[in-house]
């Protein structure tokens, strides 16, 4: 579970590698601390969230949750841990935050990206911006962040149909802001971030504050409503069955195919 923060000029780079993209409670807490260090560094103007090598993030860690005496309790703590990180990102008024998705993302991992001001992905990867396949209603401020980015209609489609979507489609609907070829991914994003940091940053930050106006005031209410529903879901047999099936599938080639490419391996 490697987490590393690095400051290069005006850019704060945050890499966080979690096995299978699953961020357990401790990982979320450590990542929050690392993020806060960058957020509190005046020299840093733009923060880049790089995720891990194989996955950007797949949200909470269902394996450690499954091993708990009462999975619902750890799931709840894990969700709150991830919410804390997302809340910190959304509450950063004096820096731009970029998500650089070098690998796929799912559920809370997608919402983590959606908390960022700009989101770029390696070309060809797949996102799973939904929860219901895991027997869960949704968390990580999805009820605010997803409709804000893609509109209510697309949010409904993504959440209810619960299918993987390509980065290309994600760009078309506003979930992502760009697909970048693999070979130049890091270089291109770093250059874009440097440009943002060095050109009209104050205007961009003023725009950000206006765009986010009202969002922060709604976080508490959204979090409480989402967590209440998640608590109920986490105590239902659907969650236990879906979680166990997911954990069994995780090691299979079929699942890896779905997770990285799409439902038909394309």
């Amino acid at each position, binding site marked *: 579970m490697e987490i590393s923060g690095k400051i290069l000029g005006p850019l704060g780079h945050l890499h966080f590698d979690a096995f299978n993209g699953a961020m357990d409670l401790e990982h979320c807490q450590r990542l929050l601390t690392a993020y806060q260090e960058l957020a509190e560094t005046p020299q840093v103007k733009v923060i880049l969230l790089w995720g891990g090598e194989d996955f950007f993030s797949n949200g909470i860690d269902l394996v450690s949750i499954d091993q*708990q*005496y*009462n999975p619902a*309790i750890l799931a709840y703590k894990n969700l709150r841990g991830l919410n804390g990180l997302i809340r910190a990102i959304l509450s950063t008024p004096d820096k731009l935050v970029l998500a650089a998705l070098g690998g796929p993302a799912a559920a809370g991992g997608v919402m983590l990206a959606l908390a960022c001001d700009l989101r770029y992905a390696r070309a060809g990867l797949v996102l799973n911006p939904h929860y219901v396949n895991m027997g869960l209603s949704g968390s990580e401020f999805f009820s605010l962040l997803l409709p804000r980015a893609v509109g209510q209609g697309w949010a409904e489609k993504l959440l209810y149909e619960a299918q993987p979507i390509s980065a290309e489609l994600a760009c078309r609907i506003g979930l992502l802001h760009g697909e970048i070829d693999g070979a130049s991914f890091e270089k291109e994003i770093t250059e874009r971030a440097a440009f943002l940091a060095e050109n009209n940053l104050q205007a961009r930050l003023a725009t950000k504050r206006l765009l986010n106006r009202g969002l922060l005031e709604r976080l*508490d209410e959204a979090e409480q409503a989402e967590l209440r529903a998640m*608590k109920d879901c986490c*105590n239902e*047999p659907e969650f236990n069955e879906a979680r166990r099936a997911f954990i069994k599938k995780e090691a299979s080639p079929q699942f890896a195919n779905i997770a990285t490419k799409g439902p038909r391996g394309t």
Partner: protein
Amino acid sequence: MGLEYLEGFEDAATAQTLAREIGTLAAKRPQTRLMHLCGSHEQAINENTLRQLLPDSVEIVPGPGCPVCVCPVEDIDLAVTLAREPGVTLLTFGDMIRVPGTVESLAQARKEGASVQVIYSPLDAIAKAKEAPEQQFVFFSVGFETTVAGVAGLAAAKLPGNLTFLMANRYMPPVLRLLMEIHDQSIQGFLLPGHAAIITGLEPYRFMETEYKLPCAVAGFEPVDVLYGILGLMRQIDQGQAKVENLFKRLAKDEGNQAAWGLINRVFELGPGIWRGIDKIPGSAFRLKADYAHLDALKRFAARPAYAPRAHPPGCQCHRIMLGEKRPTDCAHFKKGCTPNNPLGPCMVSVEGTCYSWFRFSGL
């Protein structure tokens, strides 16, 4: 001198006065949710219809404070298994024999020939063991700090060699920490259990002041005690305070009972413990220290249940009721398939269990 010293703790007029003061403070805010951590508080509230004395905007949420309810099903299954061993008699308190295990309760096992006897005090265990030296006796011990003090006294005494312990005693403060970790911001204060505080004092609860900054009040169990505790919490909320306050001073000292706590710590250490259906909570189970390991029934007897534990039958909401997430009336089994005569979950067994208490006293 505060009301906590007064003897009028059963006085109806005092209760009315306190209820009015609570009403005045409650009117200043739309809603107040307080939680208690003690089955005896829930029993006192229901027996004395205290909820009806409070304004609608004040909700008293029952917490995980019934010792019978939180006793792990794993230990009940062990107790059933040991009671079925030839030559072994299992001793326990009355409520425990009816608590559902995974397959059966102790009462059901007894009907089929298992040797189970009810005792009323830990001292009874010594008498039973001395009466039948050819028999092995296992005392299945449940309860919180107050009960474990008696067990510690017993363990530290010279015991008959045919008496051992199956320990399922739990320590309160860690479950309060768990409640805070899954806290949804809706609870504004906690009534702390007076009898547990008599032993430990206030110190183990100080983290509520420093880490979580939520009002807490140690309260006794008479109607006026409970109302006085609620009023204390309302005052703290009103004044923006977050103290651990002792409002049960006529019996509980701030520093606790050092002799009893010292004895407990001589005999027991704290380890992770399951709270039935809730979680395995670090530092919440009293375990015999190495010097007393010879008293551990699990070391003397090899028999173990032949089946995997199951905390609750499908649909049973006991664990969520104990966490304050659900009410008994939210459970589809309540008063239908689950009654005191046929309890499906542990909360319907004991007078301190929330479901039993609501069934028996609330008139719902």
